[in-house]
Protein backbone atom coordinates (compact mmCIF):
# COMPACT_ATOMS: atom_id res chain seq x y z
CA UNK A 1 0.00 0.00 0.00
CA UNK A 2 1.42 3.33 -1.06
CA UNK A 3 1.64 6.19 1.37
CA UNK A 4 1.59 9.95 1.46
CA UNK A 5 4.52 12.00 2.72
CA UNK A 6 4.14 15.40 4.39
CA UNK A 7 7.17 17.53 5.11
CA UNK A 8 6.91 20.64 7.24
CA UNK A 9 9.51 23.35 7.94
CA UNK A 10 12.43 21.01 7.44
CA UNK A 11 15.97 22.26 7.99
CA UNK A 12 18.78 19.84 7.20
CA UNK A 13 22.27 20.16 8.61
CA UNK A 14 25.67 18.58 8.14
CA UNK A 15 27.21 19.47 11.49
CA UNK A 16 26.74 23.22 11.71
CA UNK A 17 26.34 23.64 7.93
CA UNK A 18 22.73 24.25 6.96
CA UNK A 19 22.45 22.39 3.65
CA UNK A 20 18.73 22.67 2.96
CA UNK A 21 16.42 25.20 4.58
CA UNK A 22 12.77 25.43 5.32
CA UNK A 23 11.18 22.84 3.07
CA UNK A 24 7.46 22.28 3.25
CA UNK A 25 5.84 19.94 0.74
CA UNK A 26 3.21 17.26 0.37
CA UNK A 27 3.91 14.21 -1.73
CA UNK A 28 0.71 12.37 -2.65
CA UNK A 29 0.45 8.60 -2.54
CA UNK A 30 0.53 6.44 -5.67
CA UNK A 31 2.20 9.01 -7.83
CA UNK A 32 5.61 9.95 -9.14
CA UNK A 33 7.21 13.10 -7.82
CA UNK A 34 10.35 14.47 -9.44
CA UNK A 35 12.96 16.68 -7.79
CA UNK A 36 14.94 18.90 -10.13
CA UNK A 37 17.50 21.61 -9.54
CA UNK A 38 21.14 22.51 -10.07
CA UNK A 39 23.93 20.41 -8.65
CA UNK A 40 24.60 20.96 -4.97
CA UNK A 41 21.18 22.40 -4.17
CA UNK A 42 20.44 19.56 -1.77
CA UNK A 43 18.17 17.19 -3.69
CA UNK A 44 20.00 14.09 -2.52
CA UNK A 45 20.28 15.47 0.98
CA UNK A 46 16.55 16.13 1.15
CA UNK A 47 15.67 12.77 -0.38
CA UNK A 48 17.74 11.00 2.25
CA UNK A 49 15.82 12.63 5.08
CA UNK A 50 12.66 10.92 3.82
CA UNK A 51 13.87 7.49 4.97
CA UNK A 52 16.17 8.64 7.74
CA UNK A 53 19.29 7.78 5.78
CA UNK A 54 20.57 11.31 6.33
CA UNK A 55 21.44 10.65 9.95
CA UNK A 56 23.86 7.80 9.19
CA UNK A 57 26.39 10.48 8.24
CA UNK A 58 28.29 11.54 11.37
CA UNK A 59 27.11 14.93 12.59
CA UNK A 60 24.13 15.07 10.25
CA UNK A 61 20.76 16.08 11.72
CA UNK A 62 17.39 17.59 10.84
CA UNK A 63 14.91 20.01 12.38
CA UNK A 64 11.25 20.05 11.49
CA UNK A 65 8.92 17.21 10.67
CA UNK A 66 8.48 14.50 8.08
CA UNK A 67 5.42 12.33 8.37
CA UNK A 68 4.23 9.34 6.45
CA UNK A 69 0.48 8.81 6.60
CA UNK A 70 0.45 11.10 9.61
CA UNK A 71 3.14 9.24 11.55
CA UNK A 72 6.08 11.48 12.31
CA UNK A 73 9.25 9.72 11.18
CA UNK A 74 11.47 11.64 13.56
CA UNK A 75 9.51 11.14 16.76
CA UNK A 76 11.43 9.37 19.47
CA UNK A 77 9.41 6.16 19.41
CA UNK A 78 10.03 5.52 15.71
CA UNK A 79 12.75 3.04 14.83
CA UNK A 80 14.87 4.26 11.91
CA UNK A 81 15.52 0.66 10.88
CA UNK A 82 11.80 0.01 10.53
CA UNK A 83 11.43 3.23 8.54
CA UNK A 84 14.09 2.11 6.06
CA UNK A 85 12.48 -1.28 5.64
CA UNK A 86 9.30 0.40 4.43
CA UNK A 87 10.89 3.16 2.41
CA UNK A 88 13.24 1.75 -0.18
CA UNK A 89 16.05 3.64 -1.81
CA UNK A 90 18.07 3.48 -5.02
CA UNK A 91 21.30 5.43 -4.96
CA UNK A 92 22.94 7.72 -7.46
CA UNK A 93 25.82 5.28 -7.91
CA UNK A 94 24.95 1.59 -8.27
CA UNK A 95 25.95 -0.31 -5.14
CA UNK A 96 25.27 -4.04 -5.34
CA UNK A 97 27.03 -6.10 -2.69
CA UNK A 98 30.17 -7.34 -4.42
CA UNK A 99 30.46 -10.36 -2.16
CA UNK A 100 26.99 -11.62 -2.98
CA UNK A 101 25.74 -13.29 -6.12
CA UNK A 102 23.11 -11.64 -8.29
CA UNK A 103 20.34 -13.71 -6.71
CA UNK A 104 21.60 -13.07 -3.19
CA UNK A 105 21.71 -9.37 -3.94
CA UNK A 106 18.05 -9.38 -4.91
CA UNK A 107 17.17 -11.30 -1.74
CA UNK A 108 19.40 -9.28 0.58
CA UNK A 109 16.62 -7.08 1.93
CA UNK A 110 14.06 -9.86 2.13
CA UNK A 111 16.41 -12.03 4.13
CA UNK A 112 16.64 -9.28 6.72
CA UNK A 113 12.90 -9.42 7.27
CA UNK A 114 12.29 -13.13 7.25
CA UNK A 115 15.10 -15.57 7.14
CA UNK A 116 12.98 -18.59 6.43
CA UNK A 117 11.89 -18.70 2.85
CA UNK A 118 11.48 -21.77 0.76
CA UNK A 119 13.82 -22.27 -2.14
CA UNK A 120 11.08 -21.99 -4.72
CA UNK A 121 9.59 -18.86 -3.13
CA UNK A 122 13.04 -17.30 -3.20
CA UNK A 123 13.55 -18.26 -6.84
CA UNK A 124 10.13 -16.84 -7.74
CA UNK A 125 10.87 -13.59 -5.96
CA UNK A 126 14.23 -13.28 -7.69
CA UNK A 127 12.63 -13.78 -11.09
CA UNK A 128 9.76 -11.44 -10.34
CA UNK A 129 11.98 -8.65 -9.03
CA UNK A 130 14.53 -8.94 -11.81
CA UNK A 131 11.76 -8.99 -14.38
CA UNK A 132 10.30 -5.93 -12.70
CA UNK A 133 13.63 -4.18 -13.02
CA UNK A 134 13.92 -5.32 -16.65
CA UNK A 135 17.07 -7.31 -16.00
CA UNK A 136 15.85 -10.89 -15.93
CA UNK A 137 16.62 -11.79 -19.54
CA UNK A 138 20.17 -10.55 -19.28
CA UNK A 139 21.10 -12.39 -16.09
CA UNK A 140 18.85 -15.42 -15.84
CA UNK A 141 21.68 -17.76 -16.83
CA UNK A 142 24.19 -16.43 -14.34
CA UNK A 143 22.29 -15.72 -11.16
CA UNK A 144 25.10 -17.16 -9.07
CA UNK A 145 27.74 -14.81 -10.47
CA UNK A 146 28.84 -11.89 -8.31
CA UNK A 147 26.76 -8.72 -8.52
CA UNK A 148 29.86 -6.74 -9.36
CA UNK A 149 30.36 -8.70 -12.58
CA UNK A 150 27.57 -6.72 -14.25
CA UNK A 151 27.88 -3.53 -16.26
CA UNK A 152 27.11 -0.25 -14.51
CA UNK A 153 23.62 -0.02 -15.97
CA UNK A 154 22.88 -3.63 -15.12
CA UNK A 155 24.14 -3.05 -11.59
CA UNK A 156 21.77 -0.13 -11.21
CA UNK A 157 18.82 -2.25 -12.36
CA UNK A 158 19.97 -4.94 -9.93
CA UNK A 159 19.79 -2.33 -7.17
CA UNK A 160 16.26 -1.44 -8.27
CA UNK A 161 15.34 -5.13 -8.20
CA UNK A 162 16.80 -5.36 -4.70
CA UNK A 163 14.78 -2.36 -3.57
CA UNK A 164 11.45 -3.56 -4.99
CA UNK A 165 11.97 -7.14 -3.79
CA UNK A 166 11.03 -6.08 -0.27
CA UNK A 167 7.86 -4.38 -1.62
CA UNK A 168 8.38 -1.07 0.11
CA UNK A 169 5.54 1.41 0.48
CA UNK A 170 7.62 4.23 -0.88
CA UNK A 171 10.53 4.13 -3.30
CA UNK A 172 13.13 6.89 -3.32
CA UNK A 173 15.37 7.06 -6.38
CA UNK A 174 18.38 9.34 -6.57
CA UNK A 175 19.23 9.87 -10.24
CA UNK A 176 18.70 6.18 -10.98
CA UNK A 177 19.40 6.65 -14.68
CA UNK A 178 22.48 8.83 -14.57
CA UNK A 179 24.70 5.85 -15.44
CA UNK A 180 22.39 4.25 -17.96
CA UNK A 181 22.08 4.18 -21.74
CA UNK A 182 18.87 5.46 -23.37
CA UNK A 183 17.40 1.97 -23.70
CA UNK A 184 17.92 1.06 -20.06
CA UNK A 185 16.69 4.52 -19.14
CA UNK A 186 13.47 3.94 -21.04
CA UNK A 187 13.14 0.54 -19.41
CA UNK A 188 13.43 2.12 -16.00
CA UNK A 189 10.97 4.84 -16.88
CA UNK A 190 8.49 2.18 -17.97
CA UNK A 191 9.18 0.39 -14.73
CA UNK A 192 8.44 3.56 -12.77
CA UNK A 193 5.12 3.89 -14.61
CA UNK A 194 4.24 0.31 -13.66
CA UNK A 195 5.31 0.74 -10.08
CA UNK A 196 3.40 3.91 -9.35
CA UNK A 197 0.12 2.01 -9.14
CA UNK A 198 1.42 0.38 -5.99
CA UNK A 199 4.15 2.63 -4.70
CA UNK A 200 4.75 6.24 -3.94
CA UNK A 201 7.80 7.16 -5.97
CA UNK A 202 10.15 10.08 -5.54
CA UNK A 203 12.82 10.52 -8.16
CA UNK A 204 15.71 12.96 -8.38
CA UNK A 205 16.75 13.72 -11.93
CA UNK A 206 18.88 16.13 -13.92
CA UNK A 207 17.03 15.21 -17.05
CA UNK A 208 14.12 17.60 -17.70
CA UNK A 209 12.59 15.37 -20.34
CA UNK A 210 12.66 12.51 -17.88
CA UNK A 211 10.95 14.57 -15.21
CA UNK A 212 8.36 15.64 -17.75
CA UNK A 213 7.84 12.07 -18.99
CA UNK A 214 7.54 10.16 -15.75
CA UNK A 215 6.32 12.46 -13.01
CA UNK A 216 2.98 13.87 -11.97
CA UNK A 217 4.44 16.49 -9.66
CA UNK A 218 7.72 18.31 -9.95
CA UNK A 219 9.58 20.14 -7.21
CA UNK A 220 12.27 22.65 -8.13
CA UNK A 221 15.12 23.28 -5.68
CA UNK A 222 17.65 26.05 -6.05
CA UNK A 223 20.61 27.51 -4.25
CA UNK A 224 21.56 31.18 -4.14
CA UNK A 225 25.29 30.67 -3.88
CA UNK A 226 27.98 28.56 -2.29
CA UNK A 227 27.63 28.25 1.46
CA UNK A 228 23.96 29.21 1.27
CA UNK A 229 21.32 26.58 1.96
CA UNK A 230 19.31 25.04 -0.84
CA UNK A 231 15.60 25.86 -0.87
CA UNK A 232 12.42 24.52 -2.40
CA UNK A 233 11.42 27.15 -4.92
CA UNK A 234 8.14 25.70 -6.04
CA UNK A 235 6.25 22.49 -6.49
CA UNK A 236 3.30 21.88 -8.75
CA UNK A 237 1.81 19.56 -11.32
CA UNK A 238 4.51 18.61 -13.77
CA UNK A 239 2.51 19.95 -16.71
CA UNK A 240 2.07 23.30 -14.99
CA UNK A 241 5.73 23.42 -13.94
CA UNK A 242 6.96 22.85 -17.48
CA UNK A 243 4.43 25.07 -19.25
CA UNK A 244 3.73 27.98 -16.94
CA UNK A 245 5.73 27.94 -13.74
CA UNK A 246 4.84 30.70 -11.30
CA UNK A 247 8.42 31.60 -10.44
CA UNK A 248 10.90 33.12 -12.82
CA UNK A 249 13.81 31.04 -11.46
CA UNK A 250 11.96 27.87 -12.35
CA UNK A 251 11.30 29.06 -15.85
CA UNK A 252 14.95 30.06 -16.30
CA UNK A 253 16.18 26.70 -15.07
CA UNK A 254 13.78 24.67 -17.14
CA UNK A 255 14.47 26.60 -20.28
CA UNK A 256 18.21 26.39 -19.67
CA UNK A 257 18.87 30.05 -18.81
CA UNK A 258 20.91 30.74 -15.71
CA UNK A 259 21.93 33.72 -13.63
Amino acid at each position, binding site marked *: MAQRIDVKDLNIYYGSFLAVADVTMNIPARSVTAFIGPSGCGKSTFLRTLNRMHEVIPGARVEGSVSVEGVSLYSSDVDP*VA*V*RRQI*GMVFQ*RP*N*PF*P*TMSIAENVL*AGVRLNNRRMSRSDAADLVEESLTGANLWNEVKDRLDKPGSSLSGGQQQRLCIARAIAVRPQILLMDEPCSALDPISTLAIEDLIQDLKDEYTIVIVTHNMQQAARVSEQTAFFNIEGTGKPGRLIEMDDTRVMFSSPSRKETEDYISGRFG
Partner: protein
Amino acid sequence: MTTTPTRSPQGAEGLRRSRRSGVGSGLFAGLSVGSGALILVVLAAVAAFLLIQAWPALTSAPATLHESIAWFPDKTSLVSFVGPLVFGTLLAAAIALVIATPIAVGIALFISHYAPRRFAAGLGYLIDLLAAIPSVVYGLWGVRVLVGQNGIGQPIQQVLHDVLGFIPLFAGTPARPARSLFIAGMVLAVMILPIITAVAREVFLQTPRLHEEASLALGATRWEMIRMAVLPFGRSGVVSAAMLGLGRALGETMAVLMILSPGFTYSWHILEAGKQQTIAANIAAQFPEANPLGVNTLIATGLALFVITLAVNMLARWIVSRRAEFSGAN
Protein backbone atom coordinates in the same frame (compact mmCIF):
# COMPACT_ATOMS: atom_id res chain seq x y z
CA MET B 1 30.60 33.54 -20.10
CA THR B 2 32.32 31.57 -22.82
CA THR B 3 35.91 30.46 -23.02
CA THR B 4 37.74 29.48 -26.15
CA PRO B 5 39.70 26.31 -25.55
CA THR B 6 43.41 27.03 -25.93
CA ARG B 7 45.31 24.45 -27.87
CA SER B 8 48.67 23.29 -26.56
CA PRO B 9 51.48 24.89 -28.61
CA GLN B 10 52.93 21.63 -29.84
CA GLY B 11 49.60 20.44 -31.18
CA ALA B 12 49.75 16.78 -32.01
CA GLU B 13 53.46 16.76 -31.21
CA GLY B 14 52.41 16.71 -27.53
CA LEU B 15 51.21 13.16 -28.00
CA ARG B 16 54.72 11.77 -28.45
CA ARG B 17 56.45 10.17 -25.50
CA SER B 18 58.53 12.81 -23.84
CA ARG B 19 62.01 11.93 -22.75
CA ARG B 20 61.53 13.09 -19.18
CA SER B 21 58.54 10.96 -18.23
CA GLY B 22 60.28 7.99 -19.89
CA VAL B 23 63.25 8.32 -17.54
CA GLY B 24 61.01 8.69 -14.48
CA SER B 25 58.87 5.66 -15.13
CA GLY B 26 61.90 3.64 -16.20
CA LEU B 27 63.54 4.43 -12.89
CA PHE B 28 60.40 3.52 -11.00
CA ALA B 29 59.98 0.26 -12.90
CA GLY B 30 63.64 -0.58 -12.24
CA LEU B 31 63.30 0.17 -8.55
CA SER B 32 60.18 -1.91 -8.04
CA VAL B 33 61.48 -4.87 -10.04
CA GLY B 34 64.77 -4.54 -8.16
CA SER B 35 63.21 -4.60 -4.72
CA GLY B 36 60.99 -7.50 -5.73
CA ALA B 37 64.06 -9.43 -6.83
CA LEU B 38 65.90 -8.44 -3.65
CA ILE B 39 63.21 -10.06 -1.53
CA LEU B 40 63.55 -13.29 -3.51
CA VAL B 41 67.34 -13.19 -3.15
CA VAL B 42 67.11 -12.66 0.62
CA LEU B 43 64.63 -15.51 0.91
CA ALA B 44 66.85 -17.81 -1.11
CA ALA B 45 69.90 -16.78 0.93
CA VAL B 46 68.12 -17.60 4.20
CA ALA B 47 67.02 -20.96 2.87
CA ALA B 48 70.53 -21.73 1.60
CA PHE B 49 72.08 -20.71 4.92
CA LEU B 50 69.72 -22.94 6.86
CA LEU B 51 70.27 -25.85 4.52
CA ILE B 52 74.07 -25.59 4.56
CA GLN B 53 74.24 -25.21 8.33
CA ALA B 54 71.80 -28.04 8.92
CA TRP B 55 73.53 -30.37 6.44
CA PRO B 56 75.81 -32.17 8.92
CA ALA B 57 72.83 -33.00 11.11
CA LEU B 58 70.70 -34.03 8.14
CA THR B 59 73.34 -36.48 6.96
CA SER B 60 74.44 -37.95 10.29
CA ALA B 61 73.20 -41.32 11.45
CA PRO B 62 70.78 -41.20 14.42
CA ALA B 63 73.35 -43.10 16.53
CA THR B 64 75.99 -40.43 15.90
CA LEU B 65 73.54 -37.71 16.84
CA HIS B 66 72.69 -39.50 20.08
CA GLU B 67 76.34 -40.07 20.96
CA SER B 68 77.57 -36.56 20.42
CA ILE B 69 74.54 -34.53 21.53
CA ALA B 70 73.61 -34.78 25.21
CA TRP B 71 69.90 -34.04 24.76
CA PHE B 72 69.34 -36.04 21.61
CA PRO B 73 67.18 -39.08 22.47
CA ASP B 74 68.39 -42.60 21.72
CA LYS B 75 67.03 -44.67 18.82
CA THR B 76 65.47 -41.57 17.25
CA SER B 77 65.97 -40.30 13.75
CA LEU B 78 66.23 -36.59 13.11
CA VAL B 79 62.76 -36.62 11.58
CA SER B 80 61.16 -38.18 14.61
CA PHE B 81 63.02 -35.67 16.76
CA VAL B 82 61.70 -32.70 14.78
CA GLY B 83 58.19 -34.14 14.48
CA PRO B 84 56.95 -33.45 18.03
CA LEU B 85 58.55 -30.01 17.91
CA VAL B 86 56.67 -29.16 14.72
CA PHE B 87 53.53 -30.52 16.32
CA GLY B 88 54.03 -28.44 19.48
CA THR B 89 54.79 -25.32 17.47
CA LEU B 90 51.67 -25.66 15.35
CA LEU B 91 49.50 -26.52 18.34
CA ALA B 92 50.69 -23.53 20.37
CA ALA B 93 50.17 -21.19 17.42
CA ALA B 94 46.74 -22.66 16.75
CA ILE B 95 45.69 -22.15 20.38
CA ALA B 96 46.87 -18.55 20.19
CA LEU B 97 45.02 -17.96 16.94
CA VAL B 98 41.77 -19.51 18.13
CA ILE B 99 41.79 -17.30 21.21
CA ALA B 100 43.04 -14.12 19.57
CA THR B 101 41.20 -13.91 16.26
CA PRO B 102 37.60 -13.56 17.53
CA ILE B 103 38.66 -11.09 20.19
CA ALA B 104 40.71 -9.09 17.69
CA VAL B 105 37.86 -9.01 15.17
CA GLY B 106 35.49 -7.90 17.93
CA ILE B 107 37.79 -5.11 19.06
CA ALA B 108 38.42 -4.05 15.47
CA LEU B 109 34.68 -3.90 14.75
CA PHE B 110 34.09 -1.98 17.93
CA ILE B 111 36.74 0.55 16.99
CA SER B 112 35.66 0.87 13.38
CA HIS B 113 31.88 0.78 13.69
CA TYR B 114 30.63 1.13 17.26
CA ALA B 115 32.82 3.36 19.39
CA PRO B 116 32.35 7.13 19.32
CA ARG B 117 35.01 8.64 17.07
CA ARG B 118 37.33 10.18 19.66
CA PHE B 119 37.20 7.14 21.87
CA ALA B 120 37.86 4.88 18.89
CA ALA B 121 41.03 6.75 17.95
CA GLY B 122 42.35 6.50 21.52
CA LEU B 123 41.51 2.83 21.77
CA GLY B 124 43.17 2.08 18.45
CA TYR B 125 46.27 3.85 19.64
CA LEU B 126 46.31 1.82 22.87
CA ILE B 127 46.06 -1.44 20.94
CA ASP B 128 48.95 -0.36 18.74
CA LEU B 129 50.98 0.29 21.88
CA LEU B 130 50.44 -3.32 22.96
CA ALA B 131 52.46 -4.32 19.90
CA ALA B 132 55.41 -2.29 21.16
CA ILE B 133 55.80 -4.27 24.40
CA PRO B 134 58.83 -6.60 24.23
CA SER B 135 58.02 -10.28 24.36
CA VAL B 136 60.14 -10.81 27.49
CA VAL B 137 57.73 -8.53 29.30
CA TYR B 138 54.80 -10.62 28.10
CA GLY B 139 56.69 -13.67 29.32
CA LEU B 140 57.20 -12.10 32.73
CA TRP B 141 53.57 -11.13 32.87
CA GLY B 142 52.53 -14.65 31.95
CA VAL B 143 54.81 -16.19 34.56
CA ARG B 144 53.65 -13.79 37.27
CA VAL B 145 49.95 -13.50 36.59
CA LEU B 146 49.07 -16.83 35.01
CA VAL B 147 51.62 -19.36 36.20
CA GLY B 148 52.88 -18.16 39.57
CA GLN B 149 51.54 -18.71 43.05
CA ASN B 150 47.83 -17.83 43.08
CA GLY B 151 48.08 -17.24 39.35
CA ILE B 152 44.77 -17.20 37.52
CA GLY B 153 46.02 -19.83 35.08
CA GLN B 154 45.28 -22.73 37.39
CA PRO B 155 41.62 -21.97 38.06
CA ILE B 156 41.06 -21.30 34.36
CA GLN B 157 42.61 -24.64 33.46
CA GLN B 158 40.60 -26.41 36.17
CA VAL B 159 37.31 -24.96 34.92
CA LEU B 160 38.14 -25.91 31.32
CA HIS B 161 39.04 -29.42 32.44
CA ASP B 162 35.88 -29.82 34.54
CA VAL B 163 33.52 -28.49 31.88
CA LEU B 164 35.14 -29.64 28.65
CA GLY B 165 37.21 -32.55 29.94
CA PHE B 166 35.38 -34.98 27.67
CA ILE B 167 37.13 -33.37 24.69
CA PRO B 168 40.60 -34.96 24.36
CA LEU B 169 42.15 -31.48 24.12
CA PHE B 170 41.15 -30.69 27.69
CA ALA B 171 41.66 -34.15 29.14
CA GLY B 172 44.67 -35.02 31.31
CA THR B 173 45.58 -33.56 34.68
CA PRO B 174 45.81 -29.77 34.53
CA ALA B 175 49.37 -28.68 35.29
CA ARG B 176 50.27 -27.16 38.67
CA PRO B 177 51.85 -24.67 38.41
CA ALA B 178 50.15 -23.95 35.12
CA ARG B 179 53.16 -24.36 32.83
CA SER B 180 51.05 -25.87 30.06
CA LEU B 181 50.86 -25.28 26.35
CA PHE B 182 47.44 -23.76 26.85
CA ILE B 183 48.78 -21.02 29.12
CA ALA B 184 51.67 -20.41 26.74
CA GLY B 185 49.09 -20.16 23.94
CA MET B 186 47.12 -17.63 25.99
CA VAL B 187 50.16 -15.41 26.34
CA LEU B 188 50.88 -15.80 22.63
CA ALA B 189 47.27 -14.77 21.97
CA VAL B 190 47.77 -11.51 23.86
CA MET B 191 50.96 -10.93 21.92
CA ILE B 192 49.39 -11.40 18.49
CA LEU B 193 46.20 -9.54 19.39
CA PRO B 194 47.52 -6.08 18.40
CA ILE B 195 48.69 -7.02 14.94
CA ILE B 196 45.46 -8.84 14.08
CA THR B 197 43.37 -6.02 15.52
CA ALA B 198 45.32 -3.33 13.71
CA VAL B 199 45.09 -5.00 10.31
CA ALA B 200 41.44 -5.99 10.73
CA ARG B 201 40.54 -2.46 11.84
CA GLU B 202 42.17 -0.96 8.75
CA VAL B 203 40.32 -3.37 6.52
CA PHE B 204 36.97 -2.73 8.20
CA LEU B 205 37.47 1.03 7.96
CA GLN B 206 37.94 0.67 4.22
CA THR B 207 34.52 -0.87 3.69
CA PRO B 208 33.01 1.27 0.94
CA ARG B 209 30.50 3.73 2.38
CA LEU B 210 28.31 2.86 -0.59
CA HIS B 211 27.91 -0.75 0.51
CA GLU B 212 27.28 0.16 4.11
CA GLU B 213 24.58 2.57 3.00
CA ALA B 214 23.13 -0.03 0.66
CA SER B 215 22.51 -2.37 3.57
CA LEU B 216 21.29 0.37 5.91
CA ALA B 217 18.83 1.55 3.27
CA LEU B 218 17.41 -1.98 3.09
CA GLY B 219 16.64 -1.68 6.78
CA ALA B 220 19.63 -3.43 8.27
CA THR B 221 20.50 -2.84 11.90
CA ARG B 222 24.09 -1.99 12.64
CA TRP B 223 24.97 -5.62 13.27
CA GLU B 224 23.18 -6.73 10.10
CA MET B 225 25.03 -4.04 8.19
CA ILE B 226 28.29 -5.43 9.54
CA ARG B 227 27.29 -8.93 8.49
CA MET B 228 26.15 -7.88 5.02
CA ALA B 229 28.74 -5.32 4.06
CA VAL B 230 31.66 -5.11 6.46
CA LEU B 231 32.56 -8.73 7.22
CA PRO B 232 32.29 -10.06 3.67
CA PHE B 233 34.35 -7.15 2.43
CA GLY B 234 36.91 -7.66 5.20
CA ARG B 235 37.08 -11.44 5.15
CA SER B 236 40.25 -11.80 3.12
CA GLY B 237 41.80 -8.99 5.16
CA VAL B 238 40.97 -10.82 8.38
CA VAL B 239 42.55 -13.99 7.00
CA SER B 240 45.71 -12.06 6.17
CA ALA B 241 45.65 -10.47 9.61
CA ALA B 242 45.30 -13.86 11.27
CA MET B 243 48.15 -15.22 9.18
CA LEU B 244 50.38 -12.33 10.21
CA GLY B 245 49.51 -13.17 13.80
CA LEU B 246 50.14 -16.85 13.13
CA GLY B 247 53.55 -16.01 11.71
CA ARG B 248 54.41 -14.17 14.87
CA ALA B 249 53.04 -16.91 17.12
CA LEU B 250 55.00 -19.61 15.26
CA GLY B 251 58.31 -17.86 15.78
CA GLU B 252 57.73 -16.44 19.25
CA THR B 253 60.43 -17.60 21.62
CA MET B 254 60.79 -15.83 24.93
CA ALA B 255 57.26 -16.06 26.26
CA VAL B 256 57.02 -19.78 25.50
CA LEU B 257 60.48 -20.42 26.91
CA MET B 258 59.59 -18.71 30.16
CA ILE B 259 56.20 -20.35 30.63
CA LEU B 260 56.12 -23.80 29.09
CA SER B 261 57.43 -26.86 30.83
CA PRO B 262 58.78 -28.73 27.79
CA GLY B 263 58.23 -32.27 26.61
CA PHE B 264 58.69 -34.06 23.31
CA THR B 265 55.50 -35.96 22.57
CA TYR B 266 52.59 -35.77 20.19
CA SER B 267 50.18 -35.11 23.05
CA TRP B 268 46.91 -33.30 22.43
CA HIS B 269 46.52 -32.64 26.16
CA ILE B 270 47.14 -28.94 26.20
CA LEU B 271 46.41 -28.53 29.91
CA GLU B 272 49.16 -30.91 30.99
CA ALA B 273 52.77 -29.93 31.70
CA GLY B 274 55.87 -31.51 30.14
CA LYS B 275 54.14 -32.70 26.99
CA GLN B 276 54.99 -30.30 24.17
CA GLN B 277 57.68 -27.87 23.10
CA THR B 278 57.96 -25.35 20.27
CA ILE B 279 60.83 -25.14 17.82
CA ALA B 280 61.81 -21.57 18.64
CA ALA B 281 61.74 -22.08 22.40
CA ASN B 282 63.70 -25.31 22.03
CA ILE B 283 66.40 -23.59 19.99
CA ALA B 284 66.71 -20.84 22.59
CA ALA B 285 66.81 -23.35 25.43
CA GLN B 286 69.46 -25.68 23.91
CA PHE B 287 71.60 -23.32 21.89
CA PRO B 288 73.89 -21.97 24.66
CA GLU B 289 75.05 -25.45 25.66
CA ALA B 290 75.12 -27.04 22.22
CA ASN B 291 78.23 -28.50 20.59
CA PRO B 292 78.76 -28.05 16.80
CA LEU B 293 76.62 -31.00 15.75
CA GLY B 294 74.01 -29.90 18.30
CA VAL B 295 73.91 -26.46 16.64
CA ASN B 296 73.49 -28.15 13.26
CA THR B 297 70.59 -30.14 14.64
CA LEU B 298 68.95 -27.05 16.07
CA ILE B 299 69.36 -25.29 12.75
CA ALA B 300 67.69 -28.26 11.09
CA THR B 301 64.68 -27.63 13.33
CA GLY B 302 64.92 -23.96 12.35
CA LEU B 303 64.73 -25.04 8.72
CA ALA B 304 61.51 -26.88 9.56
CA LEU B 305 60.12 -23.69 11.13
CA PHE B 306 61.07 -21.73 8.03
CA VAL B 307 59.24 -24.18 5.81
CA ILE B 308 56.16 -24.16 8.05
CA THR B 309 56.00 -20.38 8.01
CA LEU B 310 56.32 -20.27 4.24
CA ALA B 311 53.63 -22.90 3.88
CA VAL B 312 51.30 -21.01 6.21
CA ASN B 313 51.75 -17.84 4.20
CA MET B 314 51.13 -19.60 0.91
CA LEU B 315 48.03 -21.23 2.35
CA ALA B 316 46.81 -17.79 3.42
CA ARG B 317 47.37 -16.39 -0.08
CA TRP B 318 45.46 -19.29 -1.55
CA ILE B 319 42.54 -18.77 0.83
CA VAL B 320 42.46 -15.08 0.00
CA SER B 321 42.66 -15.59 -3.74
CA ARG B 322 40.05 -18.32 -3.81
CA ARG B 323 37.24 -15.83 -3.27
CA ALA B 324 38.88 -12.89 -4.99
CA GLU B 325 36.11 -12.87 -7.59
CA PHE B 326 33.61 -12.02 -4.90
CA SER B 327 35.83 -9.59 -3.02
CA GLY B 328 35.26 -5.86 -3.05
CA ALA B 329 38.30 -5.38 -5.23
CA ASN B 330 36.58 -5.12 -8.59
